[in-house]
């Protein structure tokens, strides 16, 4: 999160971190195990022969020999419980199987595509936070008109589907004005439209949350006290209200992560940008189960890391939480 969270009092920080970290680590491990388990049983729900599913579904035209081989490789002839243990064992070794559409190890495909999506998501998050901050600051300080305008902008931004926004941006900035490439090209120029597509809807949500807490904060006793001490309105806003607004916004980070990943599926497809989202969609379209599961697991891991980080940031920003 690109919000000003530094420069905080550090008193009593050390003491309660250890149990917190232990608890979080346990939580992450539990969720990952559960996600892997859900994923394992989800594949078993696919109608038909699981060996066939492993090899590419009913259209794989797999030979009897190949099916037998797949059964042996994946232990499909073993009891379900044994299969499950084997599966968990492979997971622990980082073996996510082989994508049958790409005929390559899932872990390699995910590794290649992770970077692109991360760059896209992080830049979009920063841009969204900046837009949201500007909107929130304006409507918190600019009176009724500004508040109404930003309210409408928030509603529209939150309601615009990613694909529709992407198409409109391409029409405007590529086809008509010719300023930006309509497909993702290497370099920062190719990042502009995909980032805007992801950032605009997100900023609508963030701005709404931030505006409400800024308004709360501006009317709260500590702001009044600061005013009484003689701080100017700008100083009060940046030093006090903003930090107050950061807390709920940081709380949204887990959700924002999900929104960015969902958006990345659409955005990477439309802008032909390599990344996890595009891999995931083509895997879903081709029912490439191992690759879908691989991406799902990696995203789940990412989600857990983000929520852990936000929890961490929360405790940094809000000293009250540390006391608990």
């Amino acid at each position, binding site marked *: 999160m690109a919000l000003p969270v530094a420069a905080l009092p550090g008193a009593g920080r050390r003491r309660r971190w250890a149990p917190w970290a232990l608890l979080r680590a346990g*939580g992450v491990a*539990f*969720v*990952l195990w*559960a*996600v892997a388990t*859900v*994923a394992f049983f*989800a*594949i078993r*729900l*696919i109608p038909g022969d699981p060996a066939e599913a492993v090899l590419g579904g009913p259209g794989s035209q797999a030979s009897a020999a190949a099916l037998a081989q797949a059964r042996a490789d994946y232990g499909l002839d073993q009891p379900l419980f044994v299969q499950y243990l084997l599966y968990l064992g492979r997971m622990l070794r980082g073996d996510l199987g082989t994508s049958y559409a790409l005929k390559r190890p899932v872990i390699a495909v995910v590794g290649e595509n992770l970077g692109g999506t991360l760059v896209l998501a992080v830049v979009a998050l920063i841009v969204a936070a900046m837009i949201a901050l500007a909107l929130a600051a304006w409507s918190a300080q600019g009176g009724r008109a500004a508040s*109404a305008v930003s*309210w*409408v902008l928030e*509603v*529209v931004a*939150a*309601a*615009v*589907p*990613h*694909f*529709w926004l992407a*198409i409109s941006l391409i*029409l405007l900035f590529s*086809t008509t004005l010719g300023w930006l490439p309509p497909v993702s090209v290497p370099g920062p120029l190719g990042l502009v439209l995909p980032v805007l597509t992801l950032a605009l809807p997100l900023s609508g949500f963030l701005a709404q949350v931030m505006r409400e807490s800024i308004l709360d904060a501006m009317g709260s006793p500590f702001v009044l006290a600061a005013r009484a001490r003689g701080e100017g309105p700008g100083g009060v806003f940046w030093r006090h209200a903003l930090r107050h607004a950061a807390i709920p916004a940081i709380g949204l980070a*887990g*959700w924002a*992560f*999900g*929104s960015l*990943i*969902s*958006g990345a*599926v*659409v955005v990477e*497809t439309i802008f032909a940008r390599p990344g996890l989202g595009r891999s*995931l*969609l083509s*895997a*879903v*379209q081709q*029912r490439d*189960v191992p690759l*879908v599961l691989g991406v*799902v697991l990696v*995203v*789940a891991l990412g*989600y*857990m890391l983000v929520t852990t980080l936000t929890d961490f940031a929360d405790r940094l920003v809000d000293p009250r939480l540390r006391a608990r």
Partner: protein
Amino acid sequence: MRRILPWIGVGALLFLLLAALAPGLLAPADPLAIHPAQSFRAPSVGHLFGTDESGRDIYTRIIHGAGASLLIGVSATAIGVGLALVFGLLAGLGPRWLDFGTTRFLEVLFAFPGLLLALLFIVVYGPGVVTSTIAVGLATAPGYARIIRSRVLVVRRAPYLESATVLGRGWWFLLWQHVLPNVAGSLFVLVTLGIGQSIVWASSLSYLGLGAVPPAAEWGAMLSAGRTYLASSWWMTFFPGLFILISAVATTLVGRGLQERSRRP
């Protein structure tokens, strides 16, 4: 301004509802009838929103598609909120261990953010209208469940509920008389906000080729088909997208209006 906006939302929703229930009133023609000779016509008086690649009138198709698109949105929300209600009530009213278990389960579901749970569901059950609707419902359920649980916990700890418990009222009585009515308000807001979001999600799935398929007059599917002709026939993409946007904005306006009203003392 902010008093009027929700009413504009209500107006737009009523119009969409009319289109969904009696499309023949607003657009008497057959949405599936083809006229190859009149394909790719730009918007004009005869064809308000133009025609598509098979000469079908886009206005007619959008009006007739309102039913399908709204139904998908409403069903997905119903599935999501229904599941969430079960989880939320179990967690909020049940014994501690049940709350613990349900909350952990929800945490696991949260680790499949956004479209991910929907896509996983589609991989297992294959694409289509029904699966994509259920998928969207499933994907939205954890978020609703968390909100409902916290509402239920607030109600449960309220003094009047304690007194009702002391009076020896039964569990079901408490649920019907106290918990549900108190949760209903925020539930209504959630549902209103959720329908718009579900329509957007479901149309995204259709756009990605995983939901409704042509020649069905569903907005996402129309948009997806029109995308191919974006360079020459922008109206095929523009108008279905506009209606998705309108329905999402309208439900959001109404939902936010309700939210603010419930906050006012």
